């Protein structure tokens, strides 16, 4: 194994753990397929998975499902290239995922639950959209915001704690809420796709 390939492989492997929870990796693929150590995976196992094709006429042996490392029974050099290709694919997905999730804002977990949707950043009640709201993002919400909160699937506030109006109303209505997210009003624009996790207090700006 050449030094250049070794380094490439090492750097790819370091990135793998980031991807494992989010996208199907070799390990989850192997698990999904129900492969056991010592079993063989061939071309058909990978068909439609979106991964690079296995070199023709070669099969891959699963040596250790815990590490999900795929080794070839023969032709080490070409299979090594295949491995690098697979890992590079996973790495690209991993990097793309990291790019997508880099804007994680943290606040207080004020009402449990999770919601993915478009943000509606509203600075005053009169500017409230008439249609339904996915994620209502406001500086702070008093009782006057009840109707807006009822319309929304989740609420995020810049100011306030777990006993704020927004938090208590959301808990009563069973809607996810994150409060006290610093500068959320300036960091987010209406229409942005966000994930609100009221259990962890995280607001993730997807795009």
């Amino acid at each position, binding site marked *: 194994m050449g030094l250049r390939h070794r380094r490439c492989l090492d750097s790819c492997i370091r990135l793998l753990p980031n991807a494992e929870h989010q996208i199907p990796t070799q390990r989850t693929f192997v698990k999904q397929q129900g492969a056991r150590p010592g079993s063989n995976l061939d071309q058909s196992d990978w068909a439609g998975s979106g991964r690079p094709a296995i070199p023709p006429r070669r099969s891959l042996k699963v040596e250790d499902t815990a590490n999900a490392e795929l080794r070839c029974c023969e032709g080490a050099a070409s299979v090594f290239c295949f491995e690098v290709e697979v890992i590079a694919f996973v790495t690209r997905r991993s990097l793309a995922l990291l790019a997508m999730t880099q804007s994680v804002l943290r606040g207080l977990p004020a009402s449990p639950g999770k919601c993915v949707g478009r943000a509606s950043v509203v600075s005053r009640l009169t500017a409230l959209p008439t249609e339904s709201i996915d994620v209502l993002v406001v500086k702070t919400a008093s009782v006057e915001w009840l109707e807006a909160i009822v319309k929304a699937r989740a609420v995020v506030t810049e100011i306030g*704690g777990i006993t704020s109006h927004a938090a208590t109303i959301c808990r009563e209505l069973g809607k996810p809420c994150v409060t006290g997210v610093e500068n959320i009003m300036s960091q987010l624009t209406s229409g942005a796709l966000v994930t609100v996790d009221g259990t962890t207090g995280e607001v993730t700006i997807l795009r």
Partner: protein
Amino acid sequence: MDLDVTNLIDSLEEVATLLSGWKLSTTQWSLLDGPAIKLHDHSFDASPWRDHLNIYVVEHALPWKTAELEQTVPPLGSRELTELLAASRRDIHLHLVPAFRYYKAGFERKIVYLPSGRSITAATLRGCSQMWSYKSVEVVDKPNDFAEEIERIVAERLVRLRAALAVAREPDILQRLALLERGYQELSDRKTTQARATFRQAAGQSWISEVS
């Protein structure tokens, strides 16, 4: 801007109708804070209170189960929520506070007869000062719940206490308000232990025995 008494009375007529529709009797809910004081003393400056009405209810009498201690709202899809939202569109915003614990400890309130003949109860200045002292003890006794809000709470309550101090005459009310003002200064200076002792002194024995 200060509250207009005529508008306040009109709003309370609607609130009384709404709550009686939920089968709450006059003794199971009460108006608190600036608007309540204004109802007894029309010259009172209620401007430090925002545009909503704080209604303290005996939560067991509500037609839905409450889980929160600071505020309750009817469940999604309920008739009560629809009615609350309809009132909100008419600019009557209600903050419903589950308050059985405060009713047990006691606070002074008086019956007020509205022009329609309906009666409501509204806390007096003394009753409000008692309620504020109970709530102040809760703030220091539940640091995890209020930690992020302390700064805002202190600023807001100091302004309100000073508005109340400006009209207070009776010694017991003056003393309670002065204690609360001192307690919030202590809280602002991060002297939490001292603040707790001051608030407990203001709350008196009825609250202490209620919570212990």
